[in-house]
């Protein structure tokens, strides 16, 4: 092994290793600094390895609605549908939710605090979130008990929504209480009647 030279080919580090390095960086740096370092780093930021986890929660609290739409499209696109976690706040159109649902094949962890998600959207979207094990809908004031209970009563055609709840509820037992977000819903007057919520 040649050890004489002090230089190492950082630009040639395998893309998934670079993706792991970059994903620890703030969003602004990943999108505006890293691509300018060199061409291979630019390619990594365009590709899926950087976007296995899409965390734009903080950014989305300060952006305009059309920016949120553009960013969501761009990053979901770059992930090639392989993102396993998505954290974003302030979603407010049905098209944004269906965009997520349309590409949720690998999605395990979905954090949508402060979104405009309502019961109708929940019923629409839930069947397609097949691999979800964690859902954060804190401060989503438009979701009520009926979205969950109506599905559980078996009166609706889609039965995937109750399965989603079962997966969420069963995954709760594996997690320590202080990390799950349902504490927020428990104190709200819109809190669903289900005791686990």
């Amino acid at each position, binding site marked *: 092994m040649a050890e004489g030279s002090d230089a190492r080919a950082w630009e040639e580090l*395998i893309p998934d*290793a670079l993706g792991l390095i970059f994903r620890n960086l703030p969003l602004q740096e990943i999108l505006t600094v890293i691509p300018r370092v060199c061409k291979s780093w630019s390619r990594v930021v365009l590709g899926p390895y950087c976007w296995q986890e899409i965390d734009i929660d903080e*950014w989305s609290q*300060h952006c305009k609605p059309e920016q949120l739409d553009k960013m969501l499209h761009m990053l979901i696109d770059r992930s090639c549908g392989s993102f396993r976690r998505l954290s974003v706040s302030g979603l407010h159109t049905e098209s944004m939710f269906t965009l997520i649902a349309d590409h949720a094949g690998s999605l395990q962890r979905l954090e949508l605090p402060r979104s405009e998600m309502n019961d109708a959207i929940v019923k629409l979207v839930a069947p397609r979130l097949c691999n979800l094990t964690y859902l954060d809908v804190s401060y989503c004031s438009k979701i009520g008990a009926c979205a969950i209970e109506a599905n559980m009563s078996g009166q609706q055609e889609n039965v995937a929504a109750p399965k989603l709840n079962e997966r969420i509820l069963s995954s709760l037992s594996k997690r320590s209480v202080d990390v799950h977000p349902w504490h927020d819903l428990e104190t709200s007057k819109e809190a669903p009647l289900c005791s686990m919520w």
Partner: protein
Amino acid sequence: MAKMIKLVSGDGAEFEVEEEVAFQSKIIKDIVADADDVIPLPTVSSKVLIQVIEYCRKHAAVNSFPLSPSSSAAAAASSSSSISYSKPVSDPALRAWDNEFVKLNNSSLFDIVIAANYLDIEELVDLVLETVADRIKGKQAQEIRRQFNIENDFTPEEEEALRRENSWAFQNN
């Protein structure tokens, strides 16, 4: 008497290590399962192998004898979740040791991460990549290039276009 495994670096140096230390590497664990106790590692230099063994020795000791029930419970909980999040090391003393361990120059970190990836020592790979990310954070592109000896292969026009490309997302700041 602990079972010993012999690791041979690319430049021919031999290192005898306890089995539990060597088994921090999943690759070595698999090879030894096939009843091979002498493991040649032609792509890893002795300098890097010494550092990797040091890391494995420390982590094998902690994994065998967790300092507190909560650290082993946390480790068990994190291993049962479907996504592994960064910072699996919950023991603060071990974390402090790790932070000292990675106070190396970038070339050494590069060599270690390549070796750790080859040997499939996941925690060491994560540790180094996290450390590198911390060294990149907050720096401009030119600084990053200088620090990591990366050549700028963009034309000035290309670089300017890239500078503008995603600026739309951050104009509110």
